[in-house]
C-alpha cells in the first residue's frame, strides 16, 4: 500500500456559508468522508491550514509574507491517506467535500521514498 498526500485548494470557509447550520452540514460531509476512510484503516491524518503564513527562502533564509498565490489557489488543508494505487487515491479524492464548490481543487500526490 502506498501513501498519498491530498492538498486542498479553494472551497469555502465558515464565513462563506449562509448560516452556521449550513456550515455544520458541510462539515458533516467531511465527517462522513473521513469517517469511511478511517473505517477502512486508510486515514493517516488531516488538518486545515490558516490563511495567513510566511515564507522562508534560500540560503539567505529570507523571510517574507506569503503565500504568494492568488487567495483561492492557496493550500487550505491536507489529508494523508493510504491507497493501493493512484487510481484509488483519485477515487478517494473525488469524494472530498471541497469538490462541492466550483473552485475546489484536490491535488493528489504520492509520497515518495527517497533513494538512500
Amino acid at each position, binding site marked *: 500500500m502506498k501513501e498519498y498526500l491530498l492538498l486542498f485548494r479553494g472551497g469555502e470557509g465558515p464565513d462563506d456559508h449562509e448560516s452556521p447550520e449550513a456550515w*455544520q452540514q458541510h*462539515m*458533516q460531509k*467531511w*465527517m462522513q468522508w*473521513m*469517517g469511511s476512510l*478511517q*473505517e477502512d484503516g486508510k*486515514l493517516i*491524518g*488531516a*488538518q*486545515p491550514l490558516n490563511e495567513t503564513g510566511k515564507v522562508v527562502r534560500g540560503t539567505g533564509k529570507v523571510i517574507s509574507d506569503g503565500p504568494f498565490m492568488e487567495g483561492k489557489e492557496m493550500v487550505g*488543508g491536507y*489529508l494523508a491517506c493510504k491507497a493501493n494505487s493512484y487510481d484509488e487515491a483519485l477515487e478517494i479524492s473525488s469524494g472530498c467535500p471541497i469538490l462541492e464548490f466550483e473552485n475546489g481543487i484536490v491535488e493528489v500526490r504520492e509520497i515518495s521514498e527517497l533513494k538512500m
Partner: protein
Amino acid sequence: MKKEIQVLTDSLFRREAGKMVAVLVKIFGIENLQLSEDVVQETFITAVQNWALKGLPENPPAWLMRVAKNKAINAIRRNKYSSNIDFSDPDRKLLQSEYTMSAQMEKLWQEDEIQDDLMRMMFACCHEQLSPENQITLILKTLCGFSTSEIASAFLTSEENISKRLYRTREFFRKEKIKPEFPEDNQIQERIEAVLKAIYLIFNEGYNSGKSNELIRKDLLHQAMYLCKLLCDHSQTQLPQVYAAMALMCFHASRIESRITPEGEIVLLAQQDRGNWNAQLISEGVQYLNKAASGEKLSTYHIEAAIAYEHCVTKNYEDTNWKQILAYYDLLFQLYPTSVVALNRLTVVYKLKGGEFTLKELKKSEFLKEWQKNYLYYSLLGEIYAESDKALAETNYLKAISLTSAEAEIRLLNKKIADL
C-alpha cells in the same frame, strides 16, 4: 442566593458528574481517567463562578454538558500529538483532525448514549480484579462526584489513603487498558453480581455505620439507590436480582429516619415508631419486589428483601411473623452459608425458641471461632443472659463493646448494660 445555588449545585453535581466522566472516558480513554475527572472538576468550578455572577442558566445540566464538552475540545487540542491519548482507537482518530473533531465530539456526546456510557463505566468500576474497597471508592469518586475528603470521612480513613487507593486503581486501568463496555450475554449475571455487591456495600456504609455524619450517610444511601435505579431502568440490566436489590434498599431506607435519631443514636426495631416509616418507599419496594419475581434464579437479595418486607408490613413489633422470617433465613443460609447469616438466623431462633435452645445452637456451631471476632455475637449473648444472669450479660456486652469501633453501637451497648 449564593447559599441556594450552593445547595442546588451540590446535588446537581452529584448527578451530572458520573454522566460527564462516563462520556469523557470514552473521549480520552480510561487510561486518562484523571484527565476526565479534572475536566469535570474544572466544569464545576466554572459553573459555580459563572452562576454566582449571572444566576442559574435555564437548563443547568445542559449548561454543564456544554461547558464540559468545550473543555474536552480544548484538552483534545492540547493533546493532539501527545502519546497520552491513544488516537489509534477508531472512536478517537477523528478527534485528532480539526475537520472532523467537532462532529465526532457531538457524536460521542449524544444524550441518548449517556445512560449506556454510565452503565459501561459502572461495569468497569466493578472490574473483578479490583478489590470491593477500591471498587466503591472509585464509584463514589467517578460516578457520584464525591471528593476524596468526603469519601475519607464516609469510610473514617485519611484523605491520603483514599488518594492512594484511587491512584492505584487508575494505574490499573492505564496498564490493563480496560475499555468500559457491556459484558457479553453469558457474563452479565456474574458481572451484575459484582456491581450489585458494590452498590449494596455503599448502601450499607450509609445504613449501618453510626460512624460518619448524618449528611454523608444519607448521601451514600441516595447514591446507592440512584445507581441501582439506573440498572433497573436499563433494558440490558433489568434482571430479577437487580429489582430485588432495589426492593431491599427501598425497605431498609424506609426505616432509616426511625432507626437512627438525629443525634446518631440507634433505635432498635422493637422501639421504632412504625408510623414514621416511609410508606412511599415501602410501596416502591413492593413494586420492585413484584418485578423481581420472575426468572428461575433466587438471589440473596430476593430473600433479604422478603425478610425486610415482613418487617415493613407488620404494624406492631409484637405481631412480627418470626416463623416466616426464620423460614426465609433457613433459605438464605442454604444459598449463602456464611457466619453472619448464621448469626442473624440464630437471633431469630432466639425470638421463637428462647435463650436455652439458642445457646446450645450457638455453642455447637461451626462458626463459633469466627463469631468470637464479631461484636454482634457477644451482643446476642448479652441479650440472652440478661434474662438469667445479669453479671454474665454485662461481661458479654463489655466484650461486644471492645470489638466495635462504631460509636453509636457502643452507646447502644452501654445503654443495654445500664438497663440490666
